[in-house]
């Protein structure tokens, strides 16, 4: 099981802050995971409608979309950050 966590408007569009999902083995990278999630329903499709601007982190470290997801415990998706 993979823990997925969502923040800001990604969280709002999907309608949940986190979930545990059984991800199929053919999902190799973060980009694959986004494509797979988009196929799960219109709320995911809406959240990831512009995947290029969505940022990802694996186990609290920023990663690029081509990063493999194998071994990940927690993957986060969020919009560009606006702190400070």
């Amino acid at each position: 099981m993979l823990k997925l966590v969502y923040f800001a408007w990604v969280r709002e569009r999907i309608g949940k802050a986190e979930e545990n999902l059984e991800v199929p083995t053919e999902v190799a990278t973060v980009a694959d995971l986004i494509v797979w999630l988009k196929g799960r329903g219109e709320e995911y499709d809406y959240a990831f409608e512009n995947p290029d601007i969505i940022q990802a982190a694996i186990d609290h470290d920023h990663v690029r979309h081509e990063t493999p997801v194998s071994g990940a415990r927690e993957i986060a998706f969020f919009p560009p950050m606006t702190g400070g």
Partner: protein
Amino acid sequence: MIHKISIQSEKFDTAVEVASLVTGRHDIGAVVTFTGLCRDEGGRLSALELEHYPGMAEKKARQIAQEALQRWALTGITIIHRYGLIAPGEDIVLVIAASSHRRDAFEAAEFLMDFMKTKAPFWKREHLVSGETGAWVDARSEDDKAADRW
């Protein structure tokens, strides 16, 4: 050295934090502080809401501080970033950079803020005076450019 990294909902006191960093130290010749405050955007906002990613926010702030330590001759760093509902006039973020000579502290403080704004997992949303929850604040390309110059 990293003196303090704190991701917290509580308010902070800049004078207390500076004193905590410099007390008992005789190697510090310069202290630069930056405090970011919540604006009301011309009377439009009742508050800003800061969402954060617990765990990653602390980790990222610590990594940013470590990077500053590698780039400049610093004798102390404090980073405090608040989350939750923050009213206009309240502090949101504090960075303190200390060094023997002023140039390192000046530059490091600016670097720390540029990176905290664009690389630490915080998201701002507006709360309006009308009582409505407003929009998520869009990332600004100027902030990315400011971070890229380092």
